């Protein structure tokens, strides 16, 4: 049987895509398959793991809460703004993605550190945020906010302007439009963005190390624990990384599953 042109093109596109898929998947697969069960078990029972995992979950949850709480109104404003200022701001909040994380950490120190730009005003009584869990959250918010803002602005832009217009003409106040119409309709995009921001916060390393330091139970998140373990034993670091990847995979796929339910339900209505 002679393959049709359509089948061939499907195969061709699939093959091209498979190159990148393979490139991304192979290192992750290697991370898992080169680790024996005994080594993985030893990694799990490593005393660094539990406090670091707890701290990572607490700080990333706080980060996502802060980013969505402040980021959603900002994204809504930016999506509706017409002027040049809004475009400039939009470019501006993408910059943290470009800045190397350890430089971001230095920048945070220069702004909010003990000798930072605002130290006299922020810390009149000598207590500073550096080396505290608050500093971990600040570092994570700084690096992860762009990953929420960009999808959130796009999600708001995709809304049907007619719906908003009708609501306003029926007398709904801007806050009512925002909370009862815009946010629920854009929710799938917002949730996807929040998941990306969460994933970025979970993997955050450089800015945290620079701004918050590395102390078990207080500022040592999972990536910092992995780096600490790497100094001693490659296998221990590897098994901690497997834990990190597994946690991320579980939470990200749970989000996907939830999103699919949500979208199908909305379509039926």
């Amino acid at each position, binding site marked *: 049987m002679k393959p049709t042109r359509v089948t061939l093109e499907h195969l061709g596109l699939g093959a091209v895509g498979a190159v990148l898929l393979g490139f991304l998947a192979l290192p992750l697969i290697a991370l898992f398959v080169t680790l024996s069960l005994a080594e993985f078990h030893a990694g799990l029972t490593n005393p660094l793991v539990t406090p670091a995992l707890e701290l990572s979950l607490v700080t990333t949850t706080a980060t996502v809460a802060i980013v969505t709480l402040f980021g959603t109104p900002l994204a809504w404003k930016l999506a509706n703004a017409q002027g040049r200022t809004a475009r400039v701001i939009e470019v501006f909040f993408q910059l943290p993605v470009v800045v190397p994380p350890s430089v971001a950490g230095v920048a945070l*120190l220069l702004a909010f*550190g*003990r*000798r930072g730009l605002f130290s006299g005003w922020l810390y009149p009584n000598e207590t*500073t945020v*550096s*080396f505290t869990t608050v500093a971990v959250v600040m570092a994570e918010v700084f690096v992860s906010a762009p990953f929420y803002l960009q999808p959130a602005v796009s999600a708001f832009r995709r809304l049907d302007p007619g719906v908003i217009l009708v609501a306003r003409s029926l007398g709904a106040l801007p806050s009512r439009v925002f909370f009862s119409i815009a946010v629920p309709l854009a929710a799938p995009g917002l949730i996807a963005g929040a998941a990306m921001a969460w994933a970025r916060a979970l993997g955050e390393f450089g800015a945290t*190390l*620079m701004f*918050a*330091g*590395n*102390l*078990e139970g207080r*500022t040592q998140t999972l990536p910092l624990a992995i*780096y*600490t*373990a790497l*100094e*001693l034993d*490659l296998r221990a670091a590897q098994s901690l990384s497997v834990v990190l990847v597994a946690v991320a995979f579980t939470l990200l796929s749970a989000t996907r599953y939830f999103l699919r339910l949500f979208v199908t339900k909305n379509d039926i209505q």
Partner: protein
Amino acid sequence: MGWVKVFGCARWVVLCYVAVSVSVGCARARNSSRGGGDGRRENTLTVFAAASLRGVFTALKPTFTHAHPGVTVTFNFAGTQTLRAQVEHGAAVDLFASADWRHMRALMAGGKVAEPIVFARNEPVMVVSREAASTVRSLADLATAQRVVLGVPEVPIGAYSLEIFARARSTLGEDFSARVEARVVSRELNVRQVLAKVSLGEAQAGIVYRTDALTARDRVTVVPIAPEVNVVAEYPAAVSRSARSPGLARAWVALLLSPTGRQALTTAGFSLPRAP
């Protein structure tokens, strides 16, 4: 479907070409390493050196190339742990200069390097931020300092710090280690981060190598640690067993041990090896 055949054919041609060129390359490499003694000229030197040696080694490079015209010297500076991993994974290296014996011994045990020679020593010192210079003036004051930063125990400087506290127990009290531990706000992953935290004033005091402390003399106060409690890090250098230029590698070690080399090392804050 002629192109499928053409592709299949091309694949075999490529595979054969790769196989032949690899085997030829291997044979060449074998010949050249064998030819070391019969007048083959060594014209490149690749040195893997601990990050703390950057200043001294780059400063000595002109002297070396002056004495060996036509020779290209290439450096790879990184943490000793990283360098060791690179050498273990087959990186092409002639000379390995380590900041401690642990990684050197591991590479010797693996048959990667041989003939280690200690060429320098580096001693831990306290660095104190400007604001705390009047209150933190000795090792004993670490127990009352507000924010102390150390290296993690997994990196050499962190292990040395703990050893110093343990040795100071007899003079500063059995609980000295515990009292300092209570003041620790962060355990950094390398010496430069300890120094950064103190020079930015985030921490009041930390323990780093003298060579690192000297690079930040304008921002921190250096407080020496008494020799009876201090530990000294030895820096050994060893020639790679698969070196393409073992002669040049030995010449570099000789330069380090020469008056010029010793001068450069002491200027950077290193101390000289004990007389054998």
